[in-house]
Structures are given as structure tokens and as C-alpha cells.
């Protein structure tokens, strides 16, 4: 079926499937052509190849101009040279041009050491910039989650691709022409005033320091040093599967124990786990699912199905802004981060005798939208947020480095009890399909009263954008779907709006691959193998756990017995559930 073409690259013959680009063919042969705008997350349908930076140009025999290897398809008999004087001169000049319109503040840039522009400049051996002239200068735009400093933008437009083609959000787009061309919200609005969901995928792919997270590291250091404050931390499932990459460990290395040790050395009073709250989420959301499903089976025509997960703050922002007519479908369960904050500042604080005003709850998240979620008014008591603020995986790595901690040498340590205990179901929340799988494990057993033979629902795992499965529960076929990226979610929501959505339950995660590909994670630099390795690490941790079903977590059971009553109780409603707002309308009115 797949036809091959044969060509020569740097005088070496190579045969590749038709449709392969020169860049892909060359990389396959170990020829590492530099790129900047190009990004291809294979298997995830995330690709940016506008052929606009022109760093990857090569010489193709018979062609008048140099060709961008990222967008030039291999043809039979082609003769390609990737390192002639002409090519090297062109590449160097192009890089000098880019640098001539870029602030030379690498030493104090958030991206220094992790910057693709810097890496390419080093690779090309740039020693001086022969061009002087005008610089593009823009205001810095701050939102609760994202910092935009377009003076550093190299116009690769990866962010635009993520925001429009992958996420279908449409907050960012190219504006202006020529030297003044820039990626920006329409009318140069602040990001916070747009349809932006703070999913952070623009941040995740920005090759330079133009798009970064709002940095809370200094704030955290001050809180840790403040006398009289109890500072506790929760860590999201996906963090442990990626943090090691910041310290040179192989992608997919699970560093749970070292992470706990590092957090303790940073000075947190308690190191807890968001996985605990993930188990709690399953109790609430699973109960809600069964409630709606049973009502439906009982003949209730009004009940809203499918129920849709609500763990992901980017996703919540998306449907509040884009589908305000469908706000009754998502589960009312708060996200694990917020359930944790709520439980910590009530149940645990009471138990420990700590006053709310003395307690600081910090979260480590793979996500930048979580920063926004912390600030939502409905998650505050008398103005005090349940979770004071969240930092990203990258910020945690920076703090560990700043605190002189030799991370790879750390011993493995355990989370503190009681909010540090979790099951495998909580762990897999970090990968696309994980919440659905965790919910199915619990819902099945609660509904049927039977124990599952195998807790693995592999149909909902993997990198496919839309996954679906049918599970038989007491003779009823329960149809579920899992979407990651907001673009895929949009397809489901539009079907739902059109009355053509055949599912009973849907899981949505805003980021590619789920939280493992979150906007706060170590940068994948376009390597999708990293995302897959992180997911595998989570599933391995799950299968190694003694307890793999949320309803078997003894501390969850204790929490209900001692404090909450039962799932969906009045207290649970008050502390663990939320409501949604139509945030689409105000944008129309503006």
C-alpha cells in the first residue's frame, strides 16, 4: 500500500514512504537539521509546519531557491544537500535576523537553558549579530495564568496553531503586517478578556520566553519562611511522571518518592497528594453518574446525559465560554485540586487545630489553568481561597534547584497521612481516559455489587483524540467517550448541542494526552514520545498499587464516616460541588 520514494540526502541514498518530508527523512538518517517554527507531535494530530522561520532550508538540486525541509516532500531522484556553504550561510543569516529582533536578555529570561532559539543559536555558532535596527517592543500582558511578552516572540505561530487548530479556542491569531506582525488576541485585548481558557497549550509549545506561566515561586518561598504559617502542599498525578525530566532523568521515570522528599526539604509542613482528592472526586462524580443513569433508566426524561467530567479547569472555562447553553451536563463535582483545598481547610484543619488564616494550601500542578481556578470566587471562603495558589511542575523544579537539592540523589519518601493516601484510580487521572477508567471501576462495583475481574479498561487509554467504549453494567450498555484537546471536545459538544450525542458519560481533558501534556509540564519540545512515556509511567504506578479502586481508599472511607456523611450529602454538596456560569454572554455583549 505505502509507496516508497528514493532520494539522496548529503550523498547518501535513502528510501522513505511517499509523503515523508525531507526533514523527517534526514532526521531518520541522523542528520539533525535545525528547526524553530516546526513542531510535530506525532500520533496526536498536533502539527505546526508553516515553513516560515526558514532555518531548516536545504539545497535541492535543480531548484532555484533553497527549500524549507519541514515542508518539502521527498521525491524520487531528489538530491538534497543539508550543509553546503550556501545553506550554512543562509541559515546563519536567518538566525542573525531573528536575533536582531529579539531581546538579548538570555541571562535573566525565564526560558534560558530551555529555549529553542537559544539552542539553535548555539548550534549555529552565532557569535555576533551584524544587523542593528528597530526592535519589536510590546507591553507585557498578565493574566491569572499566563504571561505574554511578545517582545520575545519569534513569530513561529505554534501558539496560534494550538489555540485555533488544536484547541479551537481562537483567542490568539496573527495580527498586523510585515515587521509589525504579531500573534495577539483580537484588538490587542488582554488575554483575560478573551475566550482564552488558560489551557496553557500556547505556553507548552512556545519555543522562547514569549509565553510563560505566572511565576509564584518567590511568593511560595516567602510563605514557607513566614513564621506562624502552616504551608502544606498537594501534588497532581501527572507531576510525578514528568518532574524527573527537569533533572535529566529519562522521560517516563516516575519520581513520586523523590518528589515527596524534595517537597519536605523545601519546608512544607505536610506533603499531601491530589490523588487522594482524585479518589474523592470519583466517589462524588461516580455517585452522580449512577444517580443520573439510574434516573434515566427509571424513565426520567429530564435527566441530563451524558454527564461530563469537570476536573479540568481549561475545559470548564471552555464550556462556560463556548457552550453556556449546556451547563447542566457537566458533573457538579469540583476538581480534585479544589476538593483537596476544601477538605484541607475544613476537615483536616479542624482535626489539626489550625486556624484557616494560618494555613496556606499550595498545589503543584501540570497546568497553568489551575492558577486561574484557585482564584475563582466560588472556591473562596470569606475571600480566602481554598487553595491559595498553584505552581507548575516547572516552577517546582526551579524551586528544587534553587534550594540546592540534588534531586536524583534523593531517597524515596512517602506522602503524609491522611490526605496523602491514594489508590491507583487516583494516579491515572493524569492521563487521558484515566478519570473515565477510575469512574468505571467504582461505578461498576457500586452499581452491580460485584468485584471486577480486571480493573483495566484499556479501550479508553492511549493517544487517540476521541476514544469510545461500551461497558455492560447489570445488563445495561453504558456508552462512554473520552476526548483530549478542546478541539476534540468541541466535536462532542456540538453533537450534544445538535442532539446527536449517544453517550452516557464523557471525559474531557483540555491538553493533548491529558494532564501529562499540560501547559505546566516540562517542555516536550515537540517530542510526543515524552508524553507517551509519562502516560505509561502513570499506568505502571497504578498497576503497582495495592488498592486500585477509589472506593477502597481507607482514608476516603474515614473522611465520609467522620465528616462528609456520604457522597452527594448536603455537606458534600457544600464542600465538594460547584456550579457553572454563563461566561459566553458577556463576550457577545462587549
Amino acid at each position, binding site marked *: 500500500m505505502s509507496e516508497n520514494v528514493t532520494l539522496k540526502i548529503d550523498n547518501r541514498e535513502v528510501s522513505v514512504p511517499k509523503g515523508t518530508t525531507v526533514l523527517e527523512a534526514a532526521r531518520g538518517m541522523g542528520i539533525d537539521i535545525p528547526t524553530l517554527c516546526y513542531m510535530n507531535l506525532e500520533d496526536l494530530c498536533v502539527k505546526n509546519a508553516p515553513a516560515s522561520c526558514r532555518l531548516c532550508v536545504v539545497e535541492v538540486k535543480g531548484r532555484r*531557491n533553497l527549500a524549507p525541509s519541514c515542508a518539502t516532500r521527498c521525491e524520487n531522484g531528489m538530491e538534497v544537500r543539508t550543509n553546503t556553504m550556501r545553506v550554512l550561510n543562509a541559515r546563519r543569516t536567518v538566525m542573525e535576523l531573528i536575533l536582531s529582533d529579539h531581546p538579548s536578555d538570555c541571562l535573566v529570561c525565564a526560558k534560558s537553558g530551555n529555549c529553542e532559539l537559544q539552542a539553535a543559536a548555539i548550534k549555529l555558532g552565532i557569535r555576533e549579530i551584524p544587523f542593528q535596527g*528597530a526592535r519589536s517592543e510590546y507591553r507585557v500582558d498578565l493574566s491569572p495564568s499566563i504571561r505574554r511578552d511578545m517582545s520575545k516572540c519569534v513569530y513561529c505561530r505554534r501558539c496560534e496553531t494550538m489555540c485555533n487548530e488544536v484547541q479551537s479556542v481562537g483567542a490568539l491569531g496573527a495580527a498586523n503586517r510585515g*515587521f509589525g506582525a504579531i500573534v495577539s488576541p483580537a484588538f490587542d485585548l488582554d488575554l483575560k478578556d478573551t475566550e482564552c481558557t488558560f489551557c496553557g497549550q500556547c505556553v507548552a509549545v512556545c519555543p522562547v520566553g514569549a509565553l510563560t506561566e505566572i511565576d509564584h515561586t518567590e511568593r511560595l518561598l516567602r510563605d514557607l519562611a513566614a513564621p506562624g504559617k502552616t504551608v502544606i502542599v498537594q501534588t497532581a498525578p501527572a507531576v510525578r511522571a514528568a518532574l524527573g525530566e527537569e533533572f535529566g532523568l529519562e522521560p517516563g521515570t516516575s519520581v513520586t518518592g523523590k518528589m515527596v522528599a524534595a517537597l519536605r526539604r523545601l519546608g512544607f509542613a505536610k506533603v499531601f497528594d491530589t490523588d487522594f482528592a482524585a479518589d474523592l472526586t470519583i466517589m462524588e462524580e461516580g455517585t452522580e453518574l449512577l444517580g443520573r443513569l439510574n434516573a434515566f433508566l427509571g424513565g426520567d426524561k429530564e435527566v441530563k446525559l451524558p454527564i461530563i467530567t469537570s476536573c479540568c479547569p481549561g475545559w470548564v472555562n471552555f464550556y462556560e465560554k463556548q457552550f453556556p447553553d449546556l451547563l447542566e451536563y457537566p458533573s457538579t463535582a469540583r476538581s480534585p485540586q479544589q476538593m483537596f483545598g476544601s477538605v484541607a481547610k475544613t476537615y483536616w484543619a479542624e482535626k489539626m487545630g489550625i486556624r484557616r488564616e494560618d494555613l496556606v494550601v499550595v498545589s503543584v500542578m501540570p497546568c497553568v489553568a489551575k492558577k486561574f481556578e484557585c482564584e475563582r470566587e466560588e472556591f473562596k471562603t470569606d475571600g480566602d481561597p481554598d487553595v491559595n495558589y498553584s505552581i507548575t511542575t516547572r516552577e517546582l523544579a526551579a524551586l528544587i534547584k534553587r534550594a540546592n537539592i540534588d534531586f536524583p540523589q534523593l531517597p524515596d519518601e512517602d506522602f503524609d497521612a491522611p490526605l496523602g493516601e491514594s489508590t491507583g484510580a487516583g494516579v491515572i487521572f493524569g492521563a487521558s481516559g484515566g478519570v473515565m477508567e477510575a469512574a468505571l471501576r467504582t461505578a461498576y462495583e457500586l452499581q452491580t455489587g460485584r468485584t471486577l475481574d480486571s480493573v483495566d479498561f484499556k479501550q479508553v487509554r492511549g493517544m487517540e483524540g476521541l476514544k469510545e467504549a461500551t461497558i455492560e453494567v447489570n445488563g445495561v450498555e453504558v456508552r462512554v467517550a473520552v476526548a483530549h484537546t478542546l478541539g476534540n471536545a468541541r466535536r462532542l459538544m456540538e453533537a450534544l448541542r445538535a442532539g446527536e450525542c449517544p453517550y452516557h458519560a464523557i471525559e474531557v481533558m483540555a491538553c493533548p494526552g491529558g494532564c501529562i501534556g499540560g501547559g505546566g509540564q516540562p517542555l516536550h519540545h515537540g517530542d510526543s514520545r515524552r508524553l507517551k512515556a509519562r502516560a505509561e509511567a502513570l499506568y505502571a504506578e497504578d498497576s503497582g498499587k495495592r488498592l486500585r479502586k477509589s472506593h477502597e481508599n481507607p482514608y476516603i472511607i474515614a473522611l465520609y464516616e467522620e465528616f462528609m456523611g456520604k457522597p452527594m450529602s448536603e455537606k458534600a454538596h457544600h464542600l465538594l460541588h460547584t456550579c457553572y456560569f454563563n461566561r459566553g454572554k458577556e463576550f457577545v455583549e462587549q
Partner: protein
Amino acid sequence: MSYKMHILVCGGTGCRASASQHIMTRLEECLRDKNLEDEVQVIATGCFGFCEKGPIVKVMPDNTFYVQVKPEDAEEIVAEHIIKGRKVERLLYKDPERKAPVSDSKHMEFYKKQLRIALRNCGFINPENIDEYIARDGYSALAKCLTEMTPEEVIAEVKLSGLRGRGGAGFPTGTKWEFASKYKADQKYVVCNADEGDPGAFMDRSIMEGDPHSIVEAMAICGYSIGATKGLVYIRAEYPLAIHRLQVAIGQAKEYGLLGERIFGTDFCFDIEIRYGAGAFVCGEETALIHSMEGKRGEPTMKPPFPAESGYLNRPTNVNNVETFANIPVIITKGANWFNKIGTERSKGTKVFALAGKINNVGLIEVPMGTTLREVIYEIGGGIKNGKKFKAVQTGGPSGGCLTEKHLDVPIDFDNLVASGSMMGSGGMIVMDEDDCMVSVAKFYLDFTVEESCGKCTPCRVGNKRLHELLDKITEGKGTMEDLETLRNLSQVIKDTALCGLGQTSPNPVLSTLNNFYEEYVAHIRDHKCPAGKCKALLSFHIDPELCIGCGLCARNCPVDAIVGERKSPHFIDTGKCIKCGTCLEKCKFKAISTR
């Protein structure tokens, strides 16, 4: 109703700007006063081309060509020419050599060497009247194609004609049609690129204003041959007259059944819609044009895929320029073998140029390929204005290059112009004389490309900006000899790496001026002098003590008190204070002040 006489008044944009509509109104009033409105018809035509002498009024059938006519001349034209049969001599064109009036345009130097194929109907017919187009063989080419030829035969004929795209790149039109015809799709599109954007160019505009039906007919022929039923004209919104005339033409063609369902009783259906551009130069590039029509940002994308495979809405699309289309109907009616005898070996037919700059006969001309620049500039163009010395001619618009004295005898065609370091482009031709500074000329064109770059690729977005800055530095007298090397290398890299035609050609003005006027660059840098005296920063003002009588007028008018001197004795200028405004030069009655 048959008229005995016709008065053709140029309705092109240039003549309209000089009140040609008022001339028409006055003519009609005068005719009515004399009860001649049923015998003499006044018609607004398209551009006659001789814009230098506009507004043009032509009286038929005796072919009298009046120039620079004013509304108040209408009465005399009617009273003398129409009624008494006496030509109004003062309105006739005067041959500059023989100083004698010339009444018929075919005896004017401006028209003698021209061959009007694409412009065949401009200035002859009322563009808003389909019957006049039909009377001049209009729509017979479409009829011939639909009833006597297969699509393959039409393509073969266009290929045989040797017609190459008139938009700039010169790609063989027939081959392009053939590509589009080969792809299978539920819908294909024919697009007319009417996004003419070169500074000073008005070829396409004049064709659309003067002969819109030729475009409608050619697009239908193209649709038939490639299997498309939809045509789109992408036209810049600042061409309101061209838009209006196209709309009228499309409406009339529909009314006559020449567009729409089952044209000429065949199964062929074709319809045309107009899409408006916002005036971005890069939208003349076909992929950018297509994105713009789709409602996306007007910026180019990589080819392949070519529009012939995946164009408008990802369907096979054939994009041709206005002038290219205008040639099609004649090729079909007169035959490819008639057309391919005109021109040079690899460039067939004619080319329309917008002749502008320091030349006596500014206007729109059409000459056979192979005509030399000398013929165009000195015979048709009537030579350089005010007897100045010819210095250079810029062809190909901002993407082209400056050609010099040594290129004057080069026969104009696609390949020769490229070999000479310029290009055909869409047909702008700007003549420069000894007063033009070539560094400033290069800077002017870069100004344009910097402004018009979409910004997508690095070399064009940043590179052109840096080229412009370097040129600016040189015209300010701050350049170094290394800057010339940087200019050359950067220009080469931009040409080599830019994404689309705009960027790939934008350094041409720099390279061609560097190649042909290197000494002028060096003079700016090493001697801090602008030989043409254009670069203000390099000028210095001096008073000749021999000529100065010490009247003090200059000193009193100097805004910065840079001129000092005792009354009745020679003054002098403090060059440190002088802001080079030129006021003193203007005020001095004794020509004592000069620039160096």
C-alpha cells in the same frame, strides 16, 4: 437608432479625475441644444492609454483625436467639428518634432509602434454595453469553444499560442490550465487575479474598466477547458470603477445567457462572483489571494500543493491575471498560430506597460514582445522630460530591477529582462533621469516591500526591514563599505530563502542598483556625497562670495539663523547650524547660493 457620428470620451480613472464626466455632460447638453442628440452619440470608453494628454476625446468616424480637453471645449467641438465639419485645431495633438498638429492617433509616435491585443477594445467601445463588445467579435470565442472544440482542444490551442502569465512570473498559461484540468473534484474554480498592486501600475485596472466582457468571456472559456463552473474575480476594493463595470458586464452576460445555465444551448454552466481585496500587495500571490478569498489572513503558503491541485476551499483552482485572460478570446478567434507569430521565441504576443516617471508620454502602452526599451522610452514615450539625461528604467515594479543605458537595446521579453537583472513583473515601467538618486530609489522600493510584507517568514519580515535600515543609513551618509557587503549578502539570502515571490524578489532593486550604480553607493559612503543631489543629509549649502551682494534676504528668512554676514558684504552659511531646508536657495535673487 443609428447614429451618424460618435464622440468617444475616455472614461478611465485618470481622465475621469480630470473631469471627463463633465466633458460628456457638456457635450450632451450642446448636442441637445442643437437638436443633434439623435444623430450624434456620446460614449464613455475605457482608457486610450495616452494619459499624459488626457482627457482624450475622439470623434468617429473620422478618427479625430483631441487631447487635454476641458468641459468648456465641448461647445466648440460641437459647433465646429460636428456641425461645420472643421476640426478644432487647438485641441489636436502637436507632434513635438515637427510642431504640426496630428489628427489621427495612428500617426502619432505614441501609437505607431503599439500593437493592441489585450487593449483591443479599450477606447473603442462603451464598456457598459455588451452589444458593442459583441459587435467586435465578443463572445464568439466562447461560442467557438463550446460548440466546436473539446476542452482538450481549447487547452491545446492556448498551449500552442505560447501565452505566458502576465501577472509577473510568466508561467505558460496553457500548461497551467492543463494541470487544473487533470485533477478530479466535485467543484473546481477559475480565479481572476485582479489584485494589481505595483506602484504606478494600472494595466489590469484599465482592461477591466475598458473591456470587462473580455475577462468574463475568457474566464468562461477557462472554466469550460478545466471543468470548472464557478469563477471568482479577486479585485481590490479601491478599484470602484472597475468593480462597477465588471458587475455590469456580469449582469449583462447573464441576461444574454452567456453566463449561467446551459450556455449556447450546451451542458456548460458557468457563473462569476466578485470578491474584494483590502489592498494587501501580497494578496497578488496566488496562495495568499486564495486564503484571503476564504476569509483567512492574506498570507502565502508553501507550494506544492499548487492551486491546480488544492486551491480555493481545497478544490482545484486555476488563477490567471487580468491581462492574461484578456488575450484568450483573441487567441481562440484568430488562432494560436496568429498569436504565436507575434513576439519573441519564448515570449509570444504583446505586453501592456504602464509607462511612468520622467518621461514625456506617460500612459498605458501595449507593444509586441521583443520591442526594445529604447523604442519604448524614446519613440513611444517621447524621451526624457525636460531634455534631461536618461539614467535608468525600473521594470517589474518593486520586485524588479533598474536597467540602464546598456540595456536599452535589449528586446523586452520574459527571459531577457531576467537575464538583465530585472523582470517583466506585471508591467510597471518607471523611467528615471539624472536627478534620481539610485540609493534612494532602492530605498523607496524597499519602503514598499517592508510595508507590504505579510510578515510570515523571517527573511522577508526582518530581512527587508534590515535592508531598508542599511539603505537609510547610507543615504544619511553614515554607511560603511562593509555595509555594502552586508547588503549584498543579505539580499542574496532573502532571495534564496523567502517563502513567496514577494520576498524572493524584494531585494532586486537593491541588487540591481548595487550592480549598475555601485559608484553611486560608494560616493554616498566614502565621499559623503549624493551625486544626484537628492539625499538631504549629504547636501551642504554654500554662498558664492563673488555673487553675493549682501542684501541679507537669505539671513532674514533662515529659520535657524545659520546665515551671517555684514550688510553689503558677502554672507556665509554656518553648516553646523544649517538644517538644509532650502529656504535661502529659494529666496536668493542673485543665484549666489548653491548646494554641493
